[in-house]
């Protein structure tokens, strides 16, 4: 359904380009849930925004292709792309629940994308919006409320309803639960899982929290310093991570079912993407790194379909 090949998205900056997404491949099947993980600044949000070409003005796609049902979004005309955005692929933006218009009723805000993207009467759009409100688990009596009358979790439900307004096939969720409390987080996760099943939606979940991916996704892609370092199904990645960064990241999470001790951290800090290291970008922080790692690591497919980019595999 979605094939991202050799995607390169760079930001213009003083002194060159920030290589935020550098040669990334992703593949997503119908109804699949993909988790895109990594630390802040690893390029995960840029990668996702590139898929719908909603990049800030100082960023551009420098190479590669994004094939959605066989059509290349990178080369598509703006007019054609508008027919895909929201009707085929929609996004729940990071922190967007705080960007709801405070002076408009939520039902009107949900109807907005419908009116923009489809030729329907206002009454029909509102009717659909009211249904969506119920669909995401909000009491329909509250459809006419304003955003300030909603809690964070409820506002995130509103954002999800907006993303679903034009019945897309693929929804990209950028840190949808990050600012929420653990119980609210769980409620939203359950909602997303339920919607995936009911609508056979495909989703891309972007998060820094690996445990959320472990609990909700089928596949996981780990990014580091603009590069895809590991990409495989969730179970084998968490059971036997092949990239030292992935295993470091997993070990960095405390686990209440494990022993009571401080998890291990990864020493050092992420690379400067304006001048990334020539070889493996993780090498300066990697305990396994040696001479070999000063060359770019080969991309390998191990055990059938487990992608890893590391010299030590």
């Amino acid at each position: 359904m979605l094939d991202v090949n050799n995607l390169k998205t760079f930001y213009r900056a003083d002194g060159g380009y920030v290589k935020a997404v550098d040669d990334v491949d992703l593949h997503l099947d119908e109804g699949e849930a993909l988790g895109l993980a990594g630390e802040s600044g690893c390029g995960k949000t840029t990668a996702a925004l590139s898929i719908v070409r909603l990049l800030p003005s100082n960023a551009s796609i420098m190479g590669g292709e994004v094939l959605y049902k066989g059509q290349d979004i990178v080369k598509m005309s703006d007019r054609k792309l508008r027919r895909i955005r929201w009707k085929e692929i929609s996004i729940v933006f990071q922190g967007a629940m705080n960007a709801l218009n405070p002076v408009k009723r939520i039902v009107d805000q949900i109807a907005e994308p419908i009116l923009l993207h489809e030729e329907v009467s206002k009454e029909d759009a509102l009717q659909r919006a009211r249904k969506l409100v119920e669909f995401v688990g909000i009491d329909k009596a509250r459809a006419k409320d304003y955003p300030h009358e909603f809690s964070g979790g409820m506002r995130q439900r509103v954002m999800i309803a907006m993303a679903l307004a034009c019945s897309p096939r693929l929804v990209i969720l950028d840190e949808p639960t990050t600012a929420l409390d653990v119980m609210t987080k769980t409620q939203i996760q359950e909602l997303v899982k339920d919607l995936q099943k009911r609508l056979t939606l495909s989703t891309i979940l972007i998060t820094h929290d690996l445990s959320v991916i472990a609990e909700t996704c089928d596949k996981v892609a780990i990014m580091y310093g603009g590069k895809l370092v590991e990409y495989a199904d969730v179970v084998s990645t968490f059971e036997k991570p092949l990239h030292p960064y992935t295993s470091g990241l997993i070990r960095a999470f405390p686990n209440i079912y494990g022993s009571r001790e401080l998890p291990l951290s990864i020493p050092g800090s992420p690379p400067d993407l304006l001048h990334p290291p020539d070889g493996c970008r993780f090498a300066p922080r990697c305990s396994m790194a040696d001479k070999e790692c000063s060359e770019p690591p080969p991309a390998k497919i191990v055990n059938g379909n487990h992608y890893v980019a590391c010299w030590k595999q």
Partner: protein
Amino acid sequence: MKLLDDVLELKDLRVWFPVRSGILAGLLRKEAKFVHAVDGISFDVRRGEVFCLVGESGCGKTTTARCILRLIDPTSGTIKLIEGDRTTELSSATKPEIKRLRPKMQLIFQDPYESLDPKMHVLDQLSEPLRVNKIGGSRKEKMGRILSALSNVGLIPPETFLYRYPHELSGGQRQRVGIASSMVLDPILLIADEPVSMIDVSMRSEILGIMLDIKTRSQAAFVLITHDFSLAWAVGDRIAVMYSGRIVEMGPAFDVIREPRHPYTRALVSVVPVPDPTLQRKRIVLRGEVPDPVDVPAGCRFHPRCPIAKERCKTEDPEIQNVTAEHQVACHFWQEAFPEKNTEPAGVSTNA
């Protein structure tokens, strides 16, 4: 002789904020309303321990911390700070007394990236608290304190860091300077409010490690405020779980997380994210949201969301009961509902 080395004792602390009402309500003499941010909590924190206050946003954990530091005034209740033989009642302390105690109680900031002044080098940064509190005596003594604070947070050799500005430090080093500036005054009580929530996962342990190390070395009491049970599990000695301004369960970290007796704790623990996709466990997903602190439910505050609530819970506020000498729970029905010691972690289904 005191059996336990308490540094801090809270008794029945209440912090209510008045809700401003309109002129009309005033004219009609309507009852004044209050936000019951903290509503009768008691706990003590001992020397050299990490005491975690855990709860969802709005449960009152940050208000409690601010009240201990006397950044806000308690409505009622007592807060005692104990330095050896000397006990001070913070809630009624005079201004000079509070001023004397301020350096003893230090806050570790949430975002060490933002809490350093970009125009101050490390020496200035660490001299400021000493200067403001008129501590440290001669120049030489002050320098000694600063150097040892820097080496305690792992900035070694400390001399090489003195004249660096924040932009010349890496993220981790900045965080260390932030912690050193809280430590330079030799506090006996440290309060850290979500100290790592804004730091990338791969660096969290490093920072927590420094804090724990300092705690062990200085034997200060450490209050850690967090919404994250897995963090409390990793570093906490004891945990108090707060809900709607109250402590619903309190005890050693192991007991509270592995053998929780309050239905709220059980639910929270069952949904703590775990980085393991094969783990089979029963998640207890609570419906609804935390109650409005202006209009708290009668009886047990948790009853509208509680999976085991009965008639009695609607009217009668549960007292704190002992599960063991160290483990307390505020629930009418814990014995009935969760009588046995769990051998399995809470929520993990055994037949999986």
